[in-house]
């Protein structure tokens, strides 16, 4: 080969190797193997509601967003008042959604359907929902299985796909390797492992509360598909976050894109044709969180479970005695 040809071939090879992760966003941090860097501690807490309030536009102006944030702050101060004689409950010190709306200025986390609200439930979805309500009306507090997954410390919403902002501890540590992305959610201290090397999900008989997540890079976006999701028939999948049942056919596709030094854009599309009449998509943004992440040993300290069940048994015994 002539020297000239070698140099041009060499240049072409270097260029193609560099562009294997996409040539956009040159200024985002990258790992030593060239992938967009998702490593770090991040938080997606926000005061933007999941669903758009009827009458709200699709986007706020910056001034409107600021007003929303100030209102959220006022509500927090108001809720923090001590009321004589009341046992008290979650207050401003406990909730930790932050004080910011999402940087996109959208008025809801749901970006599809276009009205920013959950799609209608199907006939089967409505039946399942009614069945759950009936069951819980009759059997709530019968035993641990009748309580929420969060109350049992089995599953908190942020750990699983889709990653909804949690009311508190909505912090995540991402450690990303060439073959895996691990996401440790502080709320419930649950570790979700995303495989970048498998092609197929586990067989149907394997069900996991966190599902089975397989990801791959599309340019600079990490696309993750989660299947094999285990669910409770009567409890909503995410416990406190929203109330809809789940079926065997639920599937979630997430997209993580580091768009700036201090931001990861996150989108997640949930498809469950047995329950919803259409897929729905949320968009949130992860901002750096100073940390550190702290262990949340939920099950080990679950006095709430003991109190709820023994309280219910006591109430029943009082009712019987009367």
């Amino acid at each position, binding site marked *: 080969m002539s020297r000239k040809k070698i140099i041009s071939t060499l240049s072409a090879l270097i260029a193609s*190797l560099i562009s294997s992760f996409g040539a956009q966003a040159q200024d985002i941090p990258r790992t030593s193997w060239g992938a967009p860097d998702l490593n770090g501690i991040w938080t997606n807490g926000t005061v933007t509601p999941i669903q758009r309030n009827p009458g709200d536009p699709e986007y706020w102006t910056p001034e409107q967003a600021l007003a929303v944030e100030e209102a959220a702050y006022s509500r927090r101060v108001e809720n923090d008042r001590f009321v004589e004689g009341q046992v008290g409950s979650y207050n401003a010190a406990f909730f930790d959604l932050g004080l910011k709306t999402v940087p996109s200025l959208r008025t809801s986390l749901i970006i599809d359907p276009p009205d920013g609200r959950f799609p209608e439930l199907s006939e089967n979805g409505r039946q399942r929902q009614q069945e759950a309500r009936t069951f819980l009306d009759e059997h709530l507090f019968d035993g*641990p299985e009748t309580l929420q997954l969060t109350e049992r410390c089995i599953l908190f919403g942020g750990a699983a796909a889709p990653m909804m902002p949690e009311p508190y501890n909505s912090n995540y*540590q991402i450690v990303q390797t*060439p073959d895996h992305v691990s996401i*440790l959610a502080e709320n419930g201290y*649950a570790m979700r492992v995303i495989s970048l090397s498998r092609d197929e999900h586990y067989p149907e008989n394997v069900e996991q509360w966190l599902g089975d997540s397989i990801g791959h890079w599309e340019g600079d976006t990490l696309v993750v598909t989660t299947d094999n999701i285990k669910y409770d028939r009567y409890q909503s999948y995410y416990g406190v976050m929203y109330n809809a049942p789940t079926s065997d056919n639920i599937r979630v596709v997430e997209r993580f894109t580091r768009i700036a030094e201090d931001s990861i854009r996150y989108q997640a599309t949930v498809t469950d044709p047995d329950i919803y009449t259409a897929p729905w998509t949320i968009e949130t943004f992860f901002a750096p969180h100073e940390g550190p*992440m702290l262990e949340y040993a939920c*099950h080990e300290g679950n006095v709430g479970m003991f109190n709820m069940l023994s309280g219910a048994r006591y109430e029943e015994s009082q009712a019987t005695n009367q």
Partner: protein
Amino acid sequence: MLVIPHSVRRMANKATSRFTTFFCFLALSTISSAQEINGRPDLNGVWQTLSTANWNLLTHGAGKGGNDDIGVFGAIPPGGGVVAGNEIPYLPEAAERQAQNFASRWTADPEINCYLPGVPRATYMPYPFQIFQSDNHITFAYQFAGAARIINMGEPTEPPLESWMGWSNGRWEGDTLVIDVTGFNGETWLDRSGNHHSYELHVVERYTKLNDYMMAYEAVLEDPLTYSRPWTINLVLYRLPQDQIMEFNCIEYSEELLYGDLRKQVDE
């Protein structure tokens, strides 16, 4: 820094052009090395020990299990110990406590409740764990109870609170990952035989890859409230031929035991 292997040098001497060598070599160096991450030994993967240390850290013979209903499923298997000198140097009171633990081990071992196993027990449970090692971050995920540990690879910090899995500060000493663990809450046991520690436990772990499939693990334990001197655990970790750990969220399997007597009684 690029180090040119001897094999490539020999190829270079045979090749007619130095550019060909540089070309092949550049191609190799831009592909992520399976052996190193950011200049450090690559510990990524799924690992598990083959010992029976979770039953008993010291050498032990076979024994009857705690539940006749499940026959041999619950029996104690024999196994060699993993403690240097085959002795845990308990202080007198701590030795009594271990004997009491042993007598009540079929009910009092926190593992039975799916409680977090702590360090170093999480390492030698009969389930795999996975190491995630990035350029500057390391985290461990254990299959049992979804236990997880963040390893701080920056400047060491003090534990802000006590925890089940402790507070881990990591550093490299040559090719060995050294993890210094403090901040335990003293609630975990070291095995199913009642070996124990207090909240003063201090563990120094050393992970050293021996080859692609084996890693040497050493843990030195000291605890002025429990032991008269530091003592050492040594074992080998083997790489599992699987992509990742699976989910073993055992909480559901402990609920009957923990809350069964609080269930609503249904009249027959």
